[in-house]
């Protein structure tokens, strides 16, 4: 027995050593769906940049695959009794890529930057933060102007990403061209509209969990091209795989698919009270009810997405903790739709829907159009570029437009921000004080069970008023080579390179 152990141990060691060196030399190639914007957590906004940022910038907190919050650069947090301040303990021994230490001063710098930098998209997320006190080298206190329980969840995303204060001051606006953070990989180069290369950061605080020497992100806009690159081995992973490509992916023994429902939703926003054009759909809620009765979400998802997405009628997908199970996805009822229109005195109802020239929504809109036609509703499809549509949305120059929300880890960012009277995303012009009361109360408390009760009531109001038409939730599919091990899909769709290794 002893002998065997003596014999095996060196062999085992050799194996381990070998695999360690093998993985240390390895490169992970990730295909992105589009060319991301600047690599700066404060001023970037594209979805694809979040995948890139995740490799280079560590955050104070992160979410787990089942949406719990865990500390990363922080080690813990404590709310004050009045919920007006939160004290965060920081991880010791963390260094930025330029060798600068990560500490309480750095956190204060970063929050200041998010609040004050011109063009900061983070400002709105954390504007309740009045000030940041440095308690000691590794302790900070955030002082708030009002209780805001979603704050910690917000710090699991870009607002919680810490950049090196030294590099931030030196590079200013140009930080996004040469980012310096405290993540597992450090920036090497970016070929414009091409690959972005990162090398392993030797002094990373959690180095044991990093198994690649280099990560390369390559934007490839065409899905056919992206898929063949994965199949040929030119890429190791691809993000947001289209449902129509899944059959091919699954039939290839060399490939694997990761899958998880998204946090966001695909939605038609009605104009119900945003300027004069809000009259058409805003006047009589029965019209909006008729529209909902006339459509069949299940068929829609089947026709356009091969049943790979999740039909949904609420701001969370049906299996989510916050879904109100008393109001399930309704069945199609064309007769009911017709009756409602008749009762509303608008039997031949006509409205126009703005749809950006993007395939998913274009096809879905055509399916909806033909479903509505069967109930006597004429929906005109008006194609407008995304930018034009968003401008029209803010101005109220629309009757309905087809958009999506990418989702936030905390419910607050997916509903209060969209439907409360004064919220920024509320292009609908919707305002119901009762909704505001429930959803507003929920952002001040942190107990999930209590929040769930409030959200259930808010959802009920929303489902009755119908300021929007929720349609489906995507499953986020990640395609990857079978030699990639230990990949875990996250509901935000972001690939965490940490922990992944290759055989």
């Amino acid at each position: 027995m002893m002998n065997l152990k003596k014999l095996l141990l060196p062999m085992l060691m050799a194996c381990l050593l070998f695999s360690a060196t093998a993985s240390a030399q390895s490169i992970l190639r990730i295909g992105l769906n589009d060319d991301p914007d600047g690599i700066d957590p404060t001023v970037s906004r594209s979805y694809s940049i979040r995948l890139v940022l995740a490799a280079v910038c560590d955050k104070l907190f992160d979410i787990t695959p089942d949406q719990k919050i865990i500390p990363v650069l922080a080690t813990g947090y404590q709310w004050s009794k009045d919920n007006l301040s939160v004290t965060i303990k920081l991880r010791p021994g963390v260094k930025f890529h330029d060798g600068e230490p990560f500490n309480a001063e750095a956190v204060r710098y970063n929050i200041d930057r998010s609040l004050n930098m011109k063009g900061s998209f983070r400002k709105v997320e954390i504007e309740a933060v009045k000030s940041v006190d440095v308690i000691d080298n590794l302790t900070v206190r955030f002082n708030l102007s009002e209780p805001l329980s979603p704050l910690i969840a917000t710090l699991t995303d870009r607002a919680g990403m810490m950049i090196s204060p030294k590099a931030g001051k030196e590079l200013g606006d140009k930080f996004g061209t040469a980012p310096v953070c405290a993540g597992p990989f450090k920036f090497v180069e970016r070929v414009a509209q091409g690959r972005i290369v990162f090398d392993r950061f030797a002094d990373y605080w959690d180095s044991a969990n990093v198994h690649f020497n280099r990560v390369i992100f390559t934007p490839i806009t065409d899905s056919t091209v992206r898929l063949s690159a994965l199949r040929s081995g030119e890429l190791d992973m691809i993000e947001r795989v289209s449902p129509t490509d899944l059959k091919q992916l699954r039939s290839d023994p060399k490939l694997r698919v990761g899958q998880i429902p998204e946090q966001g939703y695909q939605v038609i926003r009605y104009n119900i009270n945003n300027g004069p054009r809000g009259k058409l759909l805003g006047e009589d809620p029965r019209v909006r009810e008729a529209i909902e009765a006339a459509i069949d979400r299940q068929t829609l998802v089947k026709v356009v997405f091969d049943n790979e997405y999740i039909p949904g009628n609420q701001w969370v997908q049906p299996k989510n903790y916050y879904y109100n199970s008393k109001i399930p996805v309704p069945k199609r009822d064309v007769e009911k739709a017709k009756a409602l229109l008749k009762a509303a005195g608008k039997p031949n109802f006509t409205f126009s829907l703005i749809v950006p020239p993007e395939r998913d929504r274009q096809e879905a809109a055509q399916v909806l159009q033909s479903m509505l036609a069967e109930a006597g509703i004429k929906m005109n499809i008006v194609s407008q570029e995304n930018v034009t549509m968003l401008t029209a949305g803010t101005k109220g120059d629309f009757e309905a437009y087809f958009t999506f929300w990418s989702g936030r880890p905390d419910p607050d960012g997916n509903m209060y921000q969209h439907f409360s009277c004064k919220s920024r995303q509320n292009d609908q012009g919707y305002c119901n004080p009762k909704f505001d009361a429930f959803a507003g109360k929920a952002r001040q408390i942190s107990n999930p069970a209590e929040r769930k009760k409030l959200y259930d009531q808010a959802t009920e109001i929303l489902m009755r008023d119908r300021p929007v038409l929720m349609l489906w939730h995507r499953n986020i599919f990640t395609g990857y080579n079978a030699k990639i091990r230990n990949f875990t899909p996250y509901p935000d769709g972001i690939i965490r390179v940490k922990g992944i290794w290759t055989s």
Partner: protein
Amino acid sequence: MSATTIPVASATPAVASPGRNRVLRRFLNRPAAVVALAMVLGFILVAIAAPWLAPYDPIKTDFLAVRKAPSALYWLGTDEVGRDVLSRIIWGARASLLAGVIPVTLALLLSIPLGLLSGYAGGWTDGIIMRFTDAMLAIPFLIVAIALAAFLGPSLTNAMIAIGVAALPTFLRLSRGTVLAIKTEDYVEAARAVGNSHVRIALRHILPNMLPPLLIQGSITMAAAIIAEASLSFLGLGQQPPSPSWGSMLNAAQRYLSVAPWIALYPGLMIFGVVFSLNILGDGLRDALDPKAH
């Protein structure tokens, strides 16, 4: 690349207009041109007769027959929301042919007065018009069209306007060149000596001689315009759903390339067929109207 540039017809102006019979005879002597003419007429006929020819309603969806391969029921298969591809191709001929005719007409109508003005007035007017033309020619045709179509908002009509405006400089240069060449001809000088007004000379003597090269250019540009409409629709800036056009069908087809290639195959073949016929027709026209060019 013919998708993004417009080929330029020979700028040699026809000196004296040849007799109509001679033109016709020269044209009919070219079998390829006659066949092409027949094909173009065939396409036009299909477009006009679409309601009777198409086996199905081109916008009627059938959710039980999505992306079905060609069969006895659906000769060319069905598309991404279960519409008959053949019917959509037949109806799509309307959009494509209109996209050939309207931009060219627009460019012709604009280029003739501007060309006359530029060639006749000379000096600063000419200089500004020509620099503007040069500038537009230096920016790729498709990019001007994309920007214009985005500005006007995506629709078939706007795409056609955008293509017409983007094609204008080629026509303008040609018509001005013709005016300059004809202006110095003896019979024009003579007409002026007799005391004819400028307007009269322009309309009676110069205009008829401008037409042959412009018509040749028109037939070539018609082909380019059809490709341009397809390109804009391919980018989502042309024909709007659910109405079919060959370009928008290709746009929709791109994501189903590997699972339903027939959606992409036939519209492309159609565009090729029409454009090919138009190009041969253009050649025939040139030979008939302007034998010296060859």
